[in-house]
């Protein structure tokens, strides 16, 4: 460990000697494993091993970066980068990298995820659970992914840190009929808390309920969102809290700081805590990560910042760097006081949506978008599921939906799925009233 930290530090010192004003180097030693499966069988098992140093430096407010893979000729890479900085253009809004030395929380990786011997066993736990729930004819596919990274990060401005990050996730989609499916996910930073059968059972349960779907009707519905689909929603909302997205008008939160953007019941925070598959103890500037409540009881409290965006907004960094753009790491919605069943009762009549994909915007600043629910879509009446539906699309607006949040469950699930429910989140069941659905004509 110390050897790699020393090497990373040496790269920073060399860059300083060559004239850089500020330098950050991050060395990642990563092991990634993935099992992909479909039709209840494993298609491929994949392993990546990576050893890279990401180097970012500033020279007279010119920000340049490189990634070093070949450590035989680091000097040449550094000279080239400094040369690039000298012909690049000054960015007046660059506010420097974070300064000071920090104490970090202890990393809590699971060493068992460094090299999992039999990952396919976990896949079959999920497939079997789906079959148990929905019958042996069920057709399941998905991925099992494991990550184990050691991070050595050194900044010329003071921060020096080591972090070890582990993650494991399983995503399973089960089909009971050609157009009837359910999706379940299981995400964790440790193997101990990872139960693939939960994901399989959920996928199977929804797939069974989803049989014989009918084309749904257009209109405004009270919608109960499952934690998985709401993970997609939370990802969009949190992304719009990034100060960079506000600056480039790809956010509904422009000029909304301190204003009410949601009902009292909505509190959202970013928190890359130890349980999360996005666990981390410092950001890309070496600032300790922490809980950041960005919507507090409906009021937009802060954007997510790095040092540069914080200076522009006269705020403090929130530990979300991204050297150009701050990012949310792991979004948490504060639990409500209702059970899942009470949400359905409160909604009375409406739709229960379990997953979505392909969210696209007409206008980020205005918040107009559409997204396509998939897997189980259910019509319920008087709180009871009556009919499986298909071929509906949410065509609505971010601020309108935020404003119409009516109920939140006590129960939450840690979810992540592909690029659709990303970043990971701790997501509850949520009732939003008056959601507009459209369909093909």
């Amino acid at each position, binding site marked *: 460990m110390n050897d790699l930290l020393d090497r990373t530090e040496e790269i920073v010192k060399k860059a300083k000697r060559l004239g850089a004003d500020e330098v950050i180097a991050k060395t990642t030693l990563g092991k990634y494993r993935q099992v992909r499966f*479909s*039709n209840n*069988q*494993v*298609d*491929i*098992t*994949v*392993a*990546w*091993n*990576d*050893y*890279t140093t990401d180097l970012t430096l500033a020279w007279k407010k*010119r*920000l*340049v*970066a*490189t*990634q*070093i*893979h070949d450590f035989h000729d680091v000097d040449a890479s550094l000279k080239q980068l400094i040369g*690039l*900085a000298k*012909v*690049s*253009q000054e*960015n*007046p*809004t660059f506010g420097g990298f974070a300064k000071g030395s920090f104490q970090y929380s202890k990393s809590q990786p699971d060493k068992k995820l460094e090299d999992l011997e039999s990952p396919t066993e976990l896949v079959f736990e999920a497939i079997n659970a789906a079959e148990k729930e929905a019958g042996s004819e069920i*057709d399941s*596919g*998905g*991925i099992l992914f494991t990550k184990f990274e050691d991070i050595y990060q050194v900044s010329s401005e003071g921060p020096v840190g080591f972090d070890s990050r582990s993650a494991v996730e399983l*995503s399973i989609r089960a089909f009971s009929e*050609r*157009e009837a499916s359910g999706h379940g996910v299981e995400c964790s930073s440790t193997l101990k808390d990872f139960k693939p059968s939960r994901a399989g059972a959920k996928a199977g349960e929804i797939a069974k309920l989803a049989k014989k779907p009918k084309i749904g009707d257009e209109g405004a519905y009270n919608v109960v969102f499952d934690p998985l689909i709401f993970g997609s929603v939370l990802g969009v909302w949190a992304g719009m809290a990034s100060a960079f997205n506000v*600056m*480039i*008008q*790809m956010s509904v939160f422009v000029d909304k700081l301190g204003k009410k953007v949601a009902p009292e019941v909505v509190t959202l925070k970013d928190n890359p805590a130890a349980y999360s598959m996005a666990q981390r103890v410092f950001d890309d500037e070496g600032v300790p990560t922490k809980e950041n409540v960005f919507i507090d009881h409906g009021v937009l409290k802060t954007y997510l910042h790095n040092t540069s965006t914080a200076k522009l907004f006269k705020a403090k960094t929130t530990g979300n760097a991204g*050297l*150009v753009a701050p990012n949310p790491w792991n979004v948490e919605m504060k639990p409500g006081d209702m059970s899942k069943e009470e949400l359905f009762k409160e909604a009375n009549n409406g739709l229960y949506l379990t997953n979505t994909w*392909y*969210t696209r*915007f*007409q*206008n980020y600043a205005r918040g107009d*978008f*559409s*997204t*396509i629910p*998939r897997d189980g879509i259910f019509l319920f009446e008087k709180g009871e599921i009556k009919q499986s539906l298909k*071929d509906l*699309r949410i065509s609505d607006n971010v601020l309108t939906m935020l404003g119409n949040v009516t109920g939140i469950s006590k129960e939450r699930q840690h979810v992540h799925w*592909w*690029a659709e429910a990303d970043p990971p989140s701790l997501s509850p069941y949520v009732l939003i009233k008056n959601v507009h659905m459209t*369909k*093909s*004509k």
Partner: protein
Amino acid sequence: MEEEIVDYALEYAQGKKVEYAEARALSQIQDRLILRNGVVEAYTSAIDSGFCVRIIANGGIGFASTNKWSKEEAKTIVDLAFKYAKATNRKDKLRFAEEKGVVKKWSVAQKKKIENVAPEDRISAFTEVDKALASCGVKVAATISQCSIDLITKYFVNSEGSRISSFVPKIGAYLFITVAEQGKTEQGYEQFGYSGGWEAFGVWKMEEKMVHNANVLRDVITKAKAVKPGNMDLICGSEVTGIAAHESCGHPMEADRILGREMSQAGRSFIYKGGEYWIGTRIGSDAVTVADDPTIENSYGYYLYDDEGIKARRRFLYKEGIINEFLHNRESAAKLGARSNGSSRSINYDREPIVRMANTFVVPGKSTEEELIEDVKEGVYMKSFTEWNIDDRRFNQRYVGKEAYLIKNGELQYPVARPVIETTTLKFWSAVDAVSKKVEYDAATCGKGDPGQGVPVYTGGPCMRLREVFVK
């Protein structure tokens, strides 16, 4: 790139009990430039380089990659891939469709070498666009521009004797603008892509296109009226034709999707064995022929050999309205008793090659654009789009117009604000009664795979006329 290490990896793999083995190396010089409001936020420049092996053993596939260039590391990843392949333990054993080995070197020429263009000149290609926007008379509230330059060297060898080397330079640009007028905003983007040298910028005409975008967005705010929802004729400009060709023809014709291999991510297809749609089934009118062709010179999706060493060729996906030929790699072709048609692509050494489109377009017809419009009594001309999406069976799609006009008695009247077509693949392609003769292409990044593999593609085609579709 050290080819002898790649050769060693293959040789070492062949010493094991494998049914098939390949080793593939990729080295790319990558420059990335990001500007906000015409000011450089960051310039990154790096060389990414590594290699992978893919092995079939006991009817299973194992894949492993590394960016450490040593024979010792080569052995490590071969051992891993072999172990994983054997552990797969499939009931139905996987194999690849038959192919002969190929020995080939190919490359894309640059008229103006990217390597000779100084970084400051690369930057100014984008700052000039912002200057043009600032002086075009439209209130542009924000811009974000991104440029990607990749000089990609590949080396591929397999246990059937293939040995293929290639060099392809690719340039891409993405520009996003927000126009604010009368207290309202409208947003739009353009993407550009090219395989070749810096001459790309002469082809793209970025300044002209972005100023046009700014004017279109201002007109949406200041002049456009909503369309009265109902059945009417719709003229799709080449950009809308192209996205429809990509989304509701190219994607559902990917054989791995048809077979379910992408079921939990990008989804399946409305086309499947035993279902309503298969090869030979009608999906559109006679006027509709959609092709995918990696060999279009200088296209963003250009290649001559795919990442399994198969020669690229034009594929006719829908032919005169009939489902004609799927996109295949060697794995899907073997499962469906076909031959690969060179559709296997991987974005890097650490990703498996999967079935992908290259440049998907509607084949041109005989009419002019004017003739298509002249014959419309009442309708909408949707020249370009903003929001779009499609379900994971590739059957229910939606395109929202960016630049659009009302047509009355064969003439364009006034801009229409955000017209929407939301319909099925069958209805969309069946409604086409004529296509124009001039094809135009747009660059795009196609997403698929897990972890995601965004591959460069073209989407395109001529203008198309759809009769009596619901527009709102």
